[in-house]
């Protein structure tokens, strides 16, 4: 469960990232955040695991305050939140399984991780995570040998190896082609359903948002201007979020 209490974010240069946001994302929801670029989607997502600090208000994840946590407390909250990035952010020169294992570092002592000794259970867990995203056979291949879609699935496996209860995905398909986009979205949806992991995804394809989300939140200039089911997210609603009718390139099409 993720709770936003009067959350605002103003960047040092005066840009408003988030404006007075109050909402609760319940366990097991698959929330898609939509909005124009610059509407605050990334800020919203990154403030949940505090990659970005908020200016005022409070964010709680599973009842624990992210805003007031520090040091190991904050690291323990982050350990419970998997994050998927547009640019995958894998260690390209390391093997796939090594990348997935890096999701486990929060569970071990600094000394143990410095030596790179992960317990057998961690390796098994990582291979299992790779199995879930159907790239078990790539476990010992270097990450940069994989296609974009495969790399994104490795980063999903990394979040699974974390045994996270929340997954945040910041434009996870923006650098993928339409076919792999669907595979990655299918993976995220399946994991959300099978493992009941609360999932928050930033997307700019409105048809994908309607197709996969259980709830859509629309942001405009840092404010929530839409919050409802995919059925309620009509073309008119999107026109309201975007301040204009949707364009052709905001649809993925196909399928």
């Amino acid at each position, binding site marked *: 469960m993720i709770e936003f209490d009067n959350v605002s974010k103003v960047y040092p240069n005066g840009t408003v990232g988030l404006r007075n946001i109050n909402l609760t994302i319940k366990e097991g929801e698959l929330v898609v955040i939509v909005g124009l670029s610059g509407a605050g989607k990334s800020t919203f997502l990154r403030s949940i*695991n505090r*990659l970005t600090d908020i200016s005022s208000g409070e964010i709680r994840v599973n009842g624990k305050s992210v805003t007031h946590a520090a040091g*190991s407390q904050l*690291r*323990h*909250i*982050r*350990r*419970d*939140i*998997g*994050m998927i*990035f547009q*640019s*995958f*952010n*894998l*260690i390209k*020169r*390391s093997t796939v399984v090594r990348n997935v294992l*890096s*999701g486990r*570092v*929060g569970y071990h002592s*600094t000394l143990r*991780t*410095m030596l*790179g000794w992960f317990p057998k259970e961690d390796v098994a867990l990582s291979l299992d995570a790779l199995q879930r995203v159907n790239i078990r056979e790539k476990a010992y291949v270097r990450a940069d040998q994989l296609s974009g879609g495969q790399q994104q699935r490795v*980063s999903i496996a*990394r979040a699974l190896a*974390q045994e996270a209860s929340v997954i945040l995905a910041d434009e996870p398909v923006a650098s993928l082609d339409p076919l792999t986009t669907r595979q990655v979205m299918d993976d995220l949806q399946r994991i959300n359903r099978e493992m009941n992991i609360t999932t928050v995804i930033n997307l700019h394809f409105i048809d994908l948002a309607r197709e996969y989300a259980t709830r859509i939140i629309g942001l405009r200039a840092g404010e929530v201007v839409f919050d409802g089911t995919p059925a309620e997210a009509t073309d008119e609603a999107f026109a309201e979020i975007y301040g204009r009718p949707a364009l*052709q*390139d905001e649809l993925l099409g196909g399928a």
Partner: protein
Amino acid sequence: MKTPASTAPLQPAAPEILPPRKTKQLAGWLVLIAVLIVCSIRTKVTPYQLITGLPQMGSLLREMFPPDWSYLPTIWAPMMETVQIAILGTTLGGLLAIPVALLSASNLQVSRWISLPCRMILNLVRTIPDLLFAAIFVAVFGIGPFAGMLALVFFSFGIIAKLTFEAIEAIDPGPLEAMTAVGANRMQIIRFGVVPQALPYFMSYLLYTFEVNIRAAAVLGLVGAGGIGLLLDRALGLFRYDRASIIILLTLVIVLVIDYGSTIIRRKLL
């Protein structure tokens, strides 16, 4: 999606775009030539000296041939000592460089109170030439290979730390962010985000410095810091240019072998 063809009337023809003028480029060349001429006049370093000195050069070369092959067994041990000094100096210098490079890098959120002094030390170390280091350490620890090795430690440390911290600053910040999001602490972020990205560069700089150090170690003996340089100094002092040439030849062979080896390793690393 294709944008439909514009139905608006054509814009009036824009003024023709001309290539930028070359005056700046020309001025640059003129300044360079002027600087060269002034330097040459002030230091009295002129091509005239090159021409008058050439016959001397010829006679020196004639004396260098044929090399004194019988001297080879005598110089083998000091040559190996030179290589060993270089191995020790480069390795220890490289190890010292790791923490300092990490503390100097501006993208690892190290306090300025630590990173700025670290960079100052690096700049200071690099202003001191290796021969001066050797001369200082000979004065402190006495004549012998230890002083030479220590000189190379500092020399390598300066080069490797500087190049490595610049490599660290150029790494992809994405994996660092991913490791932060995973809940890793500072050391873990470095171990899993920085090290895998910077290690190939570090190794490459280490090998490059090793090559440089072989050459440097060969002259360290000139100030009494051990290795082949001592024999080179003696051969030159006694006008035994045939012996000097065999030393130079052997050094060349060793440098070529190491150069070749490290090129292969570096290519595999990057």
